[in-house]
C-alpha cells in the first residue's frame, strides 16, 4: 500500500484514546508494519517503546508506541494464530534492537530482520524454552543460579587492543550491569553493555493481579522514578475508566513529580562533582537533597514519595500551613543553589572534566531519537510537559530547558536549569493551589485497554495496560533508559576510561527499570 494512503485512510484508521495527552491507536497488518514505521519516522517520530503480549491462546501481538510533535501513536500488530515471528523495526529505529531481543526472550517471538539475535534479558538461569510472558510458560524444572558466562561479546579485532570487563558488581553504590570496554591505551574504542542482571520478572508478576493492588509493584519498577510510574499507571487506569480528575489532584501529582525530579537532579549533580574529584559539590548538594527528603517525609509521609498516587487521585492532601512551609524552603534552596551554581560553573578544574566529554551531537541525537533530559542536552526539544501541557501544566506552564553541545557539561547545565524551573514552578503552583477534592471514586470496567505517559526526570515513562475480567491481563511499564543505554555506548567513544564514571553518571540510566 502507498505510504500516505496507509497514513490517511488505511484499512483501520486511528482511534483516539481518552486521557490528558493525545494518544492515537490503530491496528496494523504485518505487511504494513515497517512501512508505517517508516512513514512515522519521516514525520519526525521517535520510537518510545516496543513490547509484545499473548492475547488469546497462541495469538500474539506486538505493540509499538511512537511520539511525534503533536501526538502519541500506539500501533498494534496482531500476528496470525500460531505465528511466532514479526517484522523488525531495528533498521528504521536503532533503539528497537534490544527491545525486540527482549520480546524474543520473554515471549519467544522472533524479530525477522533484526541482525542481532542474541538473548538480552535472559541469562543462563533458565532455558530458552521457558517463556515467562506466555499464558502457560513451560514448567520450571531446571531453574538455576548459574552465571552468564558464554555471552558472545562482539569486541574488536586487533593485537594492540585490550579489553576491560567491568561489573556486574561496580565499585560504587550503584545498580549492577556489565560493561565491556575495548581500548587502545586509555582511549575507549568500543563499549558493549550487558544488562539484565536485575531482571525480577515484574511483567509476569503483574499478570493476573488486582489492578488496585498492583500499584505497589508499579511504584517499584525503578525506585528513583516511583512518582512517574505510579502516575503513568494511574493515568492508564483512569483512561480505561474514562474519568477526569479534579484539578487539585492533578496539581498535587505535578508537585510530587517535580519534587522527584529535584531530588534526583540534586543527587546526580553532586555525584557528578564527586566523580570529577570535587567532593565539595557532593556535600553541598546532598545536604540540600537530604533537607528535601526530610521535608518529603514530614509533609507527604515518604522520603521518596512512594505510594502517594492512587487511581483516582492521591492518598494525601496538603494543609494551608504546609504549603507555606514548602514555599519557604523552596525559596531558601533556590537562593543557595544559585550561589552554588555560579561557584561551580566558574570552577576551572570541574569545567575541564565536564566540557567536551561524552558528547552526542544534535544530529546524532536525532538519529537515535533521543528524548528526555539527555535529549534536551543535545538540543532535542522534547518535553511532554511543554509539548502537550497536560494538566496541571496547562494552568501552570513549564519552561523547557535546553542545551546544544550534548556533552556532560550540557547535561549538567540542563539539570541545573530544570532544578530552577521546577522550584519556580512549585512556587507558582503553591501560590494558587486549586481547591477541592484530591481523590475521586474510580468506577473501573472489568475489561479495557489504556495507556498512561508522564515526563519523568529521565524522559518519557509510560505504562500500557489491558484488563480482562477485572484483572491485569497485560501490563508493560516502560523506562526511557531502554532508548538511552545504546546511546551511552556511543557517548563514551574517543574518551578515556577514567571519564566513563562521569559520562555514565551524567545520564544516570536505570538498570531496574530496564531489566524489569
Amino acid at each position, binding site marked *: 500500500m502507498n505510504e500516505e494512503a496507509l497514513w490517511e485512510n488505511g484499512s483501520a484508521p486511528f482511534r483516539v484514546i481518552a486521557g490528558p495527552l493525545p494518544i492515537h491507536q490503530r491496528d496494523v497488518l504485518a505487511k504494513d508494519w515497517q512501512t508505517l514505521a517508516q512513514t512515522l519516522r519521516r514525520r519526525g517520530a521517535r520510537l518510545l517503546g516496543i513490547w509484545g503480549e499473548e492475547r488469546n491462546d497462541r495469538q500474539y501481538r506486538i505493540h509499538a508506541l511512537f511520539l511525534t510533535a503533536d501526538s502519541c501513536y500506539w500501533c498494534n500488530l496482531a500476528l496470525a494464530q500460531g505465528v511466532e515471528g514479526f517484522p523488525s523495526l531495528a533498521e528504521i529505529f536503532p533503539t528497537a534492537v534490544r527491545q525486540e531481543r527482549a520480546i524474543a526472550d520473554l515471549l519467544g517471538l522472533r524479530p525477522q530482520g533484526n541482525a542481532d539475535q542474541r538473548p538480552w534479558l535472559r*541469562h543462563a*538461569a*533458565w532455558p530458552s524454552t*521457558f517463556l*515467562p510472558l506466555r499464558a502457560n*510458560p513451560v514448567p*520450571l524444572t531446571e*531453574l*538455576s*543460579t*548459574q*552465571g*552468564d558466562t558464554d555471552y558472545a561479546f562482539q569486541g574488536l579485532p586487533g593485537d594492540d587492543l585490550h579489553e576491560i570487563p567491568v561489573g*556486574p*558488581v561496580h*565499585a*560504587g*553504590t*550503584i*545498580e*549492577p550491569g556489565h560493561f565491556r570496554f575495548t581500548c587502545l591505551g586509555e582511549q575507549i574504542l568500543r563499549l558493549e553493555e550487558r544488562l*539484565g*542482571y*536485575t*531482571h*525480577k*520478572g*515484574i511483567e*509476569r*508478576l503483574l499478570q493476573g493481579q488486582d489492578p488496585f493492588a498492583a500499584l*505497589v*509493584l508499579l511504584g*517499584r*519498577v*525503578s*525506585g*528513583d522514578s*516511583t512518582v512517574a510510574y505510579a502516575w503513568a499507571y494511574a493515568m492508564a487506569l483512569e483512561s480505561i475508566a474514562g474519568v477526569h480528575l479534579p484539578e487539585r489532584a492533578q496539581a498535587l501529582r505535578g508537585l510530587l513529580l517535580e519534587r522527584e525530579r529535584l531530588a534526583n537532579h540534586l*543527587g546526580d549533580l553532586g*555525584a557528578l562533582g564527586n566523580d570529577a574529584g570535587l567532593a*565539595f559539590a*557532593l*556535600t*553541598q548538594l*546532598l*545536604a540540600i*537533597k*537530604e533537607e528535601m*527528603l526530610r521535608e518529603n517525609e514530614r509533609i507527604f509521609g515518604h*522520603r*521518596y514519595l*512512594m505510594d502517594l498516587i492512587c487511581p483516582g487521585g492521591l492518598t494525601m492532601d496538603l494543609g494551608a500551613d504546609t504549603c507555606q512551609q514548602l514555599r519557604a524552603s523552596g525559596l531558601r534552596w533556590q537562593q543557595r543553589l544559585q*550561589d*552554588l551554581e555560579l*561557584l561551580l560553573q566558574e570552577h576551572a578544574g570541574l569545567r575541564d572534566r565536564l566540557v567536551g566529554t561524552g558528547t552526542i551531537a544534535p544530529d546524532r541525537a536525532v538519529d537515535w531519537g533521543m528524548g528526555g533530559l539527555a535529549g534536551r542536552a543535545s538540543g532535542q526539544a522534547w518535553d511532554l510537559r511543554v509539548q502537550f501541557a497536560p494538566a496541571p501544566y496547562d494552568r501552570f506552564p513549564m519552561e523547557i530547558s535546553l542545551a546544544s553541545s550534548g556533552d556532560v557539561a550540557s547535561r549538567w547545565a540542563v539539570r541545573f536549569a530544570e532544578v530552577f524551573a521546577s522550584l519556580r514552578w512549585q512556587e507558582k503552583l503553591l501560590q494558587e493551589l486549586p481547591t477541592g477534592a484530591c481523590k475521586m471514586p474510580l468506577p473501573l470496567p472489568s475489561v479495557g485497554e489504556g495507556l498512561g505517559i508522564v515526563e519523568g526526570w529521565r524522559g518519557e515513562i509510560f505504562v500500557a495496560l489491558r484488563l480482562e475480567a477485572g484483572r491485569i491481563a497485560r501490563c508493560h511499564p516502560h523506562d526511557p533508559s531502554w532508548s538511552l543505554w545504546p546511546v551511552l555506548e556511543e557517548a563514551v567513544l574517543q574518551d578515556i576510561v577514567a571519564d566513563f564514571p562521569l559520562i555514565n553518571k551524567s545520564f544516570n540510566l*536505570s*538498570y*531496574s527499570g530496564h531489566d524489569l
Partner: protein
Amino acid sequence: MYRILREAWRLGKVGDPMPSSSSPKKATPFSRSAVIRHVDAGSCNACELEIQALGGPHYGLEQAGLRFAASPRHADILLVTGPLSRHMAAALQDTYDAMPKPKKVLAVGDCACTGGIFHDSYAVLGPVETLLPVHERCLGCPPKPEQILSSLQNLLHEGLEQ
C-alpha cells in the same frame, strides 16, 4: 578557593547525633571500625538511594568507623539489597567468597530480608539468606539511612569474630 571555603562554612555542621545501638559493646576485633562492600542483588534502586544518602553530610558514617570500599578484598561487611535476582546470584557469591574472614552479611530492605513484593517471581531467589548466612536484617521499603546505620552499628558491636 575562598568562596568554596565560605560556602562550606555557611553550610556548617549538619550532622545528627549518632543513633544508639541496641547491642552491648564487647571488645572484639573490628568492634570500632569496619569496611563495607555493597552489592545490589536486583533492587528497585530506592535502597541504593538511601545508602547514598547515608554517605551525605547529615549522617556520620565515617564518624561511626564505617566506610564503603570498592573491592570485596578490603571489606568486613557485605551489605546486600534486592530480592536476589537469579542473574545476580553468582556475582553475589563471588563477592562474598572474595572477602577475607572474618566477615558478616547485612540484608538491607524488605526485598533482601524476605524477598518483599518480588518474592513469588521465577526470576528471584527471595531472601538473601537462601544463598548466604545473614547476620543482621534491616527492614523497610526502603529503610531510612539512620536505620541502616544502626544495623551497621549492631554488627560492629557484636564484633566480627566468626
